């Protein structure tokens, strides 16, 4: 299945938990952060570490706290989202390693997050296994063609279609969406032939 939709640039990077620490490190000023507005931050010493600061943000949604390192260019060390009642909803602790060429790199992070305060919290541990900064990126890396026999929901055009073997689209008509995909595809191919 394929999907097409309009989106703000890099929305995925800055609002997706698995990549959030990378966004906080390298794109902290991206306007697509939905959880906080950097320019509205308030700064205070972190209570638990001499070299850390605690940044808080007026709640756009739930209150957000960001602990940063003074000695490492204000890198984010911990990202916490709390409920209006002060219960931690999401907590991400980031570790870094120093690369002689590109500086501090987020190397791992641990997250805990609760879907609701009355449910047990889930957790995850992410390890960076490979990285590169400022290397040439082939233009093809940002292209994605849907192969034949893909059902595509196009949110921009407001239609769904299947892709025939010749690459043309067979639009799904109202009432057809519940039809068996293989039958739809065979039908599309028969008309193509």
């Amino acid at each position, binding site marked *: 299945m394929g999907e097409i939709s309009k989106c703000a640039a890099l929305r*995925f990077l800055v609002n997706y938990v698995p990549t959030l620490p990378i966004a906080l490190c390298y794109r902290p000023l991206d306007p697509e952060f939905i959880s906080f507005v950097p320019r509205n931050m308030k700064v205070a010493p972190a209570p638990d570490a001499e070299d850390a600061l605690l940044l808080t943000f007026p709640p756009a949604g739930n209150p957000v706290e960001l602990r940063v390192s003074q000695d490492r260019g204000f890198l984010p060390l911990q990202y916490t989202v709390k409920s209006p009642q002060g219960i931690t909803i999401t907590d991400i602790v980031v570790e870094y390693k120093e690369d002689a060429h590109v500086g501090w790199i987020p190397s791992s992070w641990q997250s805990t997050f609760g879907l609701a305060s009355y449910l047990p919290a889930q957790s*995850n541990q992410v390890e960076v296994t490979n990285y590169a900064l400022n290397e040439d990126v082939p233009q093809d890396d940002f292209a994605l063609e849907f192969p034949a026999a893909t059902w595509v929901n196009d949110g921009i055009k407001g239609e769904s279609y299947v892709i025939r073997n010749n690459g043309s689209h067979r639009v799904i008509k109202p009432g057809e969406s519940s039809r068996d995909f293989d039958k739809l595809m065979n039908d599309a191919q028969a008309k193509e032939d």
Partner: protein
Amino acid sequence: MDFVRKPSSASRSCGFRWLHRWFLAVLLAGGPIVALVAADELRGPETILAAWKQRQDRVHSLYFEMAEQRTVPKGSFPEGKPPRDFVFFGDYVLNARGTEGRFIDARSLWSTEQSKVVDQRFVTVYKNNVERTLFDKGASRL
């Protein structure tokens, strides 16, 4: 709001230079409390934003491969699901340059809709404010 940061040991060893800065801070602030502030030790929003911008501007493109281990305890979803503890493993690849990006997500997870463990694999590209996602055949779309 700016605040005072304790001087580092390196700063303390600067002798006359350090005293000079304290004295300068006293003169500028006109009060004994702020005399504890070294002129180059202030850290406030503008300083932080400037450092963030510098790092953001310095990194034009980035590529990260990540391995995830996720622990999903019994009952961490509504209605007591899943029925037992699970540990899931996943891999991500992130490739971004400017406002363009590619993200690959491949992992197992608990599907609340299907009430079972499913595989999720997809690739998403972002270009010209359009997001295109392709889900692997046989993998669930969540």
